C-alpha cells in the first residue's frame, strides 16, 4: 500500500490546482449523475478486471472476508425489508448498492478503532462481528435488543465492538468521532475514529463543525461520505453548489479523495491509507464514496416518486458484489460451488437468527425508567411506582400506534 499515501497527496494537490485554474471545467450535473465520475479513484473496472499495475496487495483472506460480508449485508437487508413488508417489524432502512463502502472501510480498521456510523451501515456492524441475533432483536425492539427496545429499527448500538449507538439526527456523530479520536490522541492509544454520513449529511452544521475541529486539532479521524446521490428525494444537484463533495476537504485543511464506492478494493485502499495517516499522527482525511442508493430511502419511502429511473437503471449494472465476485473468479479464488455454499450458509444463518429473535418478548415496562441516569431520581422512582400500580390495576395496554410514515 505504499502508493497509498501518494493517492491522498496527489488528490488534494490536484484539487487545489483544479479549483484555482479552471473552476468551471468540471463534470456537468447530468454527467455527474449518469456516469460514474471520472475523477474517482478506482481499482477494478466495472467487469471486475484489474490492471496488474494498479492492483493492490491485499491478503486473499481479507478480500474473501470482504466478499463474504458484502453478500451477508445484502442478504440481511433483503431479509430486513421482507420482515417489514410482512408486517413482522415496523421499519427498515436498506443499504442496497452500498455494500462495498461499508465493507471496504470496515476492513481497513483495527479492532481497537472507533466507528461512529450513520443509520445505513449494517455492513460495518456485521464486519466487526455484531451478532445477527442481536441486530435482529433491535429490529423487533425486544428484550434481546442491546438498546432495550428504545430505539427505532436499524439504530444499532454495540459497545463491545466500538460501534457507537446510531442516532437519527443527521451528522451529529461526525463531531463525536473527533472527540473520541482526540481522547485516543491524548491517551496515546493509537486508536483512530472513523465516522460516516451521507451526501445530505454534508449540508448539516455538524459536518462543518466536525471537519473544522478535526482539521484544527489534526485529530486522528477519517470521515467517510457515502454519496448515494439522494437525500430522501433531494438529488445532490439541489443539495449543494459544490461540484464534488470531496472539494469540501480543502476548506478544512485535510486531504480528500473521491472513490468509486462500488469498488470494494478501491474503498479499502483509500480508507487504509487515511487510517494509516491518522494513526501516524498526520491528521484527518475525507473520503467521498460515489455510489447510488439502489433501494428506497426506507421501508416507508417510494423512490419512483422522485428518482431518475434511467439513472437508476444505469447503476443496476454496477453492482459492487458482482464486481468483486468477478475479480475473485478471475483470481481463481472463487467458483460456482463456493458461491452456492456461501449463499446457503448465510441463508440458514439468518433464518436461524430470525427464528430466535422473533421469539423474544417485548421489554419489561419497568425497564422504561432505567438508564435515564446512572440511578433513578426520586421523581423517576415515583413515576415507576405509579406505572407499576397502573399495570396492576388495568393489566393490558392496547397498542394503537400507526405505521411509521417515513
Amino acid at each position, binding site marked *: 500500500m505504499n502508493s497509498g499515501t501518494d493517492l491522498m497527496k496527489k488528490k488534494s494537490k490536484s484539487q487545489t490546482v483544479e479549483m484555482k485554474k479552471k473552476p468551471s471545467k468540471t463534470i456537468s450535473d447530468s454527467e455527474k449523475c449518469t456516469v460514474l465520475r471520472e475523477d474517482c479513484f478506482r481499482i477494478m473496472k466495472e467487469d471486475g478486471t484489474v490492471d496488474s499495475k494498479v492492483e493492490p496487495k491485499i491478503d486473499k483472506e481479507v478480500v474473501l472476508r470482504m466478499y463474504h460480508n458484502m453478500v451477508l449485508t445484502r442478504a440481511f437487508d433483503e431479509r430486513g425489508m421482507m420482515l417489514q413488508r410482512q408486517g413482522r417489524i*415496523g*421499519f427498515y432502512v436498506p443499504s442496497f448498492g452500498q455494500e462495498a463502502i461499508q465493507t471496504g472501510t470496515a476492513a481497513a480498521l483495527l479492532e481497537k478503532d472507533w466507528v461512529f456510523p450513520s443509520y445505513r451501515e449494517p455492513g460495518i456492524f456485521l464486519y466487526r462481528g455484531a451478532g445477527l441475533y442481536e441486530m435482529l432483536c433491535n429490529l*423487533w*425492539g*425486544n428484550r434481546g435488543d442491546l438498546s432495550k*427496545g*428504545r*430505539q*427505532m429499527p436499524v*439504530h444499532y448500538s454495540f459497545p463491545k465492538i466500538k460501534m457507537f449507538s446510531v*442516532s*437519527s*439526527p*443527521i451528522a451529529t456523530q461526525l463531531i463525536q468521532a473527533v472527540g473520541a479520536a482526540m481522547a485516543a490522541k491524548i491517551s496515546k492509544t493509537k486508536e483512530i475514529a472513523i465516522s460516516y454520513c451521507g451526501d*445530505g*449529511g454534508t*449540508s*448539516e*452544521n*455538524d459536518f462543518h463543525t466536525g471537519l473544522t475541529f478535526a482539521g484544527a486539532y489534526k485529530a486522528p479521524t477519517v470521515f467517510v461520505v457515502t454519496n448515494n446521490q439522494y*437525500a*430522501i*428525494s*433531494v438529488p445532490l444537484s*439541489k*443539495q*449543494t453548489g459544490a461540484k464534488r463533495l470531496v472539494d469540501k476537504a480543502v476548506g478544512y485543511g485535510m486531504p480528500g479523495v473521491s472513490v468509486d464506492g462500488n469498488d470494494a478494493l478501491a474503498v479499502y485502499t483509500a480508507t487504509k491509507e487515511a487510517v494509516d495517516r491518522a494513526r501516524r499522527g498526520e491528521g484527518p482525511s475525507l473520503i467521498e464514496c460515489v455510489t447510488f442508493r439502489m433501494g428506497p430511502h426506507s421501508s416507508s419511502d417510494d423512490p419512483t*416518486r*422522485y428518482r431518475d429511473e434511467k439513472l437508476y437503471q444505469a447503476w443496476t449494472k454496477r453492482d459492487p458484489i458482482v464486481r468483486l465476485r468477478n475479480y475473485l473468479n478471475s483470481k481463481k479464488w472463487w467458483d460456482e460451488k463456493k458461491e452456492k455454499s456461501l449463499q446457503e450458509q448465510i441463508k440458514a444463518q439468518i433464518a436461524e437468527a430470525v427464528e430466535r429473535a422473533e421469539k423474544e418478548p*417485548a*421489554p419489561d*415496562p419497568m425497564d*422504561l*425508567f432505567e438508564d*435515564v441516569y446512572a440511578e433513578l*431520581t426520586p*421523581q*423517576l422512582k415515583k*413515576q415507576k411506582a405509579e*406505572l407499576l400500580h*397502573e399495570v396492576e*390495576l*388495568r393489566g393490558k*395496554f*392496547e*397498542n*394503537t*400506534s*400507526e*405505521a*411509521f*410514515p*417515513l
Partner: protein
Amino acid sequence: MANLTLVQAVRDALMCEMTQDPRVVLMGEDVGVNGGVFRATEGLQKEFGEERVLDTPLNESGIIGMAMGMAVNGLRPVPEIQFMDFIYPAFDEIVSEVAKIRYRSGGGFTCPMVIRTPYGGGIRGGHYHSQSSEAYFIHTPGLKVVVPSNPYDAKGLLISSIRDEDPVMFLEPKRLYRSVKGEVPEESYTVEIGKASVVRPGKDVTVLCWGAMVPVCMKAAQLCEPRGADCEVIDLRSLVPLDEETIFESVKKTGRVVIVHEAPKTCGFGAELSALINEEAILYLEAPIVRVTGLDTPFPYTLEHIYMPDPERVALAVGKVKNF
C-alpha cells in the same frame, strides 16, 4: 365542503394562502418534488413553481434562518421542519433570532412566518420521530404556539397563522394526519388564534388537552360516563396566547381538573396550566389538579403505548379527581 384528513386540510390551507397571497413561500426538506414526507405540500411545487416551494439542503438552521431573512424582506415564509425532533439545529435561529427580532429592534424589524412541524408519538417512531417539545418554544417570549386537533381547525388556524404578524410555531399532530377526517370548507376561512374550544361540555371534571391528546381525552370521557364522571374536554388549540378565560370558566364550574399532554411531566406545559389555575381559581378547586403526561424519560420505541397517555390512563385520573 370536502371531507379531508388533517394533512389534506393543511395542504388545502397552504394552497388557499399561496393562491391569494404571492408573498407566501414554502421551504423545507423534501417539500418540493416529493410533496413532503407526509405529503402536506403535495403538488404545490408543480402549481407554484420552484421559487415559491423550495426543496432545501439538509440543514434546519438554514431553513429557519433563510425564512427569517425572507420574512424581514417582505415575504410570508412557511418553512417546514420535517419532524419536530429535528428542530434543534435551528433552535438558535428560532429562540435567539426569530423570537426576538421585533423586540430587539424596537419594533423596527418583524418576521411574520409560520414554522410548520409534525410532532408527537404513536407512529412507532422511537426517540427521534415522536417528541412533543412545545414547552421549549412556549418558554420563549416572541413565539406563538398553535396546535390543531382536527381538519377544520387545522385549515382555519394555519390560515390565521400565515396572516399573523408574529412568528407562529404550528405543531401538527402527525398521529392524526390521516386518522381523523372531517368536513372542511373549500374556501378560505380563519379560526382565531388564542381561543380554546370546548369540544365536550360536562359538569364534573375539566380535562385540558391539545393536538393528538384531544381524541384520547374524548375517548376517556366516554369511558368516564358510565363510571359516573361527566367530563368537560377543552381543546386549547393555541398554547401561546392562551385562552385563560375559557379555562377558568370551566374550572370554576367543575372544581376538578385533569391536564393531559404527551411531553414529559417535568416542566411540561401542564405545570404552567396547573400554576395558573392555582393562582386564579384555587378557591374553586375541590381536588388537587392531576397531570397525565409522558414519562420523564426519553421517548421509547416498543413501549410507546405505555409511555403515552391513553384513554384508560386519563379515565383513571378523572376517577381520581372525581372521587377525591
